[in-house]
């Protein structure tokens, strides 16, 4: 019965795309959770709406609109942000403002285009089906480049995340890394959004790393566990969605949430016993 899954090219493409996105989102997400930038991640995912609407208006491919909108929003956030000595407490007001402007722009593009936007449901809740060979290749290239960039900056980025003052004193360019990470996050979110939809990005970006960090605090094992969880969630959701009438986004989110709740409960029981 499982073999049935791999007989159809659309299913193979879906599994390939799901894997690429799971690895990318879970790796970048591990830093997002450490840096407490989940709200930033959410704001960038919402940029899919102005991105798609703007692309439709300009007659450009939707995918391109995703990447451009996310990167522009990341630059706007990066320019307006002043890293505090500790943490990123003062950031949320700016992020909220950028989110509002992004949504307003999307709405403007939509009305300029006489409210024609195909696949609104896909935009919001994603689709694994109908992923083309070309899209899969693009996703793999984007994931490989982004992961390579993350590998290069990873350790100083962790230092700057844990203690910006200490890192700066040791010559780590904290401000540059802040911006670099925003751009990495923007690309990861734009790629993930194509598969999970704008509203369900968190199923792969936040839930697996948050679960992994409940289980282990060690950086490298936590990162690998986060990736393993995301891949397992994506595959399981795709496999079950194939035999089910309910959309894949529902299963991805449900499994991600279920694993998180189970681990939380397990920790709670362990801490009492």
């Amino acid at each position, binding site marked *: 019965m499982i073999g049935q899954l791999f007989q159809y090219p659309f299913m193979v493409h879906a599994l390939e795309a799901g894997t690429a996105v799971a690895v990318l989102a879970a790796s970048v997400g591990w830093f997002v959770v450490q840096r407490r930038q989940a709200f930033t991640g959410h704001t960038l995912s919402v940029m899919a709406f102005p991105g798609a609407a703007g692309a439709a208006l300009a007659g450009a491919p939707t995918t391109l609109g995703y990447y451009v909108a996310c990167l522009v929003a990341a630059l706007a956030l990066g320019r307006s942000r002043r890293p505090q000595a500790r943490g990123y407490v003062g950031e949320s007001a700016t992020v909220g403002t950028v989110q509002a402007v992004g949504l307003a722009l999307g709405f403007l593009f939509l009305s300029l285009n006489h409210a024609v936007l195909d696949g609104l449901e896909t935009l919001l809740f994603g689709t694994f089906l109908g992923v083309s060979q070309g899209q899969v290749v693009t996703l793999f290239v984007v994931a490989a480049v982004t992961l390579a960039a993350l590998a290069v900056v990873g350790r100083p980025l962790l230092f700057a995340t844990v203690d910006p003052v*200490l890192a700066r004193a040791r010559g780590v360019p904290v401000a540059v890394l802040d911006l670099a990470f925003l751009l990495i996050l923007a690309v990861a979110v734009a790629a993930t959004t194509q598969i999970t939809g704008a509203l369900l990005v968190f199923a792969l970006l936040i839930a697996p790393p948050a679960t992994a960090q409940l289980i282990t605090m060690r950086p490298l094992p936590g990162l690998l566990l986060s990736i393993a969880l995301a891949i397992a969630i994506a595959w399981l959701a795709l496999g079950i969605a194939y035999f089910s009438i309910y959309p894949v986004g529902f299963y991805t989110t449900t499994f991600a949430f279920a694993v998180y709740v189970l681990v939380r409960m397990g920790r709670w029981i362990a801490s009492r016993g």
Partner: protein
Amino acid sequence: MTTRAQAQGTREGPLSAAVEIERAAIRLGGRPIVSDVTLTVARGEFVAVLGPNGAGKSTLMRAILGLVGLASGSLAVLGAAPAQTRNQIGYLPQRHGFGEGTRIRGIDLVRLGLDGDRWGISIALGSRARQKRRAERRLIEDAIALVGAAAYAQRPIGELSGGEQQRLLIAQALVRRPKLLILDEPLDGLDLPNQSAVAALVKRISTEAGVAVLLVAHDVNPLLGYLDRVVYLAGGRALAGTVEEVITAPKLSWLYGAPVEVLKAADGRLVVVGAPEAPHVHSHRHGDP
């Protein structure tokens, strides 16, 4: 190559002082911070840097690290220009503790002190790489053992007490085996027992590991009995010597340019009375409230 090595050999010989400052003046944004500081710190010496808020204690430390330039005068660290020796200095900036939600272990923080400024990932295999990894692990374990933090180094740092966090932060500054350790207000925010415990620890480090220590503090009392010497900064000038030599009414009155009294409590604690506050406040605290 040979001449350069020889030149360095003569300048960085074992006899060169840890820090040698002569008639140094520092200006920040055109404003004079210190105007005339002369100071020598010997290798392995434990020196407290005292003075009122805004006297330029942190700025002087940043000058020793090569992060701030001198307006005039000279400054040599371990026998060389300041920026050249930065990787031989362990530095703990003025700071506050970690939040409860900091999801990283103490040992990971100490490791970041060793390799946190290294770019890329190492995927090297083979015996050389294994040996290097083992050596790094030993450096980390030694630093943690030296500050006595082995019992809680595996726990999340946000859940530790202020004193425990401070020990791990000191281990982080020590992990590269520096010859000079600069600690900016490490006793700040600690309760009294922890203040004297950290002071005793720093004394032990400077003796056992032969590290020269510059410890910035606003109160000398927790450090009494552990210090080799003190440096008192006020009015843009500095006085160095033992506690008994420097913290006296005539010396401090000269430094402040105003009459100051020094009272000695029965238990030996010192209280400086009548010291005017410096006219300006720190401007480089990275936006801390």
